[in-house]
C-alpha cells in the first residue's frame, strides 16, 4: 500500500502555501542533485508502516525557519535550534497528512531532525518521491514503506 504522488503533492503544496506564502509557489522539478543541509523524518506505525522525510538545502531550511518564526531577514539571525524546530514541524505536518491518506489507525512519531541526511532503516523501500523547487532551489519529499518481504 502506498500513497499516490498526486495526493502527496497536494499535501506538500498545502503546507507550503499555508505557512510559507502563496507568492513563492512550489514548482515541480526533475530529480537532480541536492546538497542536503537539513533533513527531517517521521515514522508511521500501525495499520500502515512507513516513513516520510524532507531534505532541504541549508539556506532554504533557514528561510523556512525565518518565515515560520516571523523573523526579519535583515535583522535577526536564525540559530540551528530554530532551523531544527521549523524543519521538524514541517515534516510533522506533511507526515500527519500522509498518514491520513493511508488506512488507519496508525500512530505518528515525533520528528527526527538532522543537519545533513537522517539515517533510514535498512528494511524500507522508496514508495514515492516528490522533487520540487522553491524560490529557485531544489527540495525532496519522500515516502518510504516497509519492504513487503521483510514486513
Amino acid at each position, binding site marked *: 500500500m502506498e500513497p499516490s504522488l498526486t495526493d502527496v503533492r497536494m499535501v506538500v503544496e498545502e*503546507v507550503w502555501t499555508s505557512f510559507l506564502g502563496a507568492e513563492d509557489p512550489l514548482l515541480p522539478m526533475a530529480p537532480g542533485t541536492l546538497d542536503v543541509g537539513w533533513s527531517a523524518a517521521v515514522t508511521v506505525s500501525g495499520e500502515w508502516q512507513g516513513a516520510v522525510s524532507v531534505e532541504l538545502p541549508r539556506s532554504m531550511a533557514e528561510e523556512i525557519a525565518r518565515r*515560520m518564526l516571523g523573523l526579519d531577514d535583515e535583522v535577526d539571525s536564525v540559530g540551528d535550534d530554530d532551523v531544527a*524546530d521549523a524543519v521538524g514541524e514541517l515534516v*510533522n*505536518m506533511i507526515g500527519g497528512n500522509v498518514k491520513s491518506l493511508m488506512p488507519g489507525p496508525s500512530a505518528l512519531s515525533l520528528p527526527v531532525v538532522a543537519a545533513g541526511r537522517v539515517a533510514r532503516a535498512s528494511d524500507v523501500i522508496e514508495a514515492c518521491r516528490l522533487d520540487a523547487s522553491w524560490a529557485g532551489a531544489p527540495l525532496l519529499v519522500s515516502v518510504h514503506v516497509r519492504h513487503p518481504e521483510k514486513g
Partner: protein
Amino acid sequence: MYALIIDDSRAMRSILRRIVTDLGFETLQAGDGQEALDHLEAGRIPTLCLIDWNMPVMDGYTFITRVRANAAWRDITLMMVTTESEHGQIVRALAAGAHEYVIKPFTPDAIADKLEMLGLVAKPVPA
C-alpha cells in the same frame, strides 16, 4: 482574554501567537501537555487552549482528558490544532471534550472562523 498555546514546536507556537494576538488575545505558551497543566494548576486559567496532539511528556489528547476531569476548568474552550487528521481521531478528540478541531496546515482565516463560531471573537461589522 488569554489563549494558552500548547505545541512542541516553537515555530508553530509563534505562528499561532501572531494569529490569536491579532484577534485580541494575550498569550501563554507551553511545549507539552504537562507544562500546560502546570499553568492551570498555578491558577493561570485561559479562555482558550490551542492544543497539538503529538508532543513529548504529555500529548494533547491526554491533556484534554485531564482538563475535562477537573470541574474547575470546565469553562475553558479546547481546540485541537494538529496534523492528526484521521476521521477516527477527530471523533476521539471530540468525545474526550475538545470543542473544535483544526487540521494543520491552516490559514489564519481558519483559526478566526472557528473562534468566531465558538463565540470567542466578534466578526467586525462591515461599514
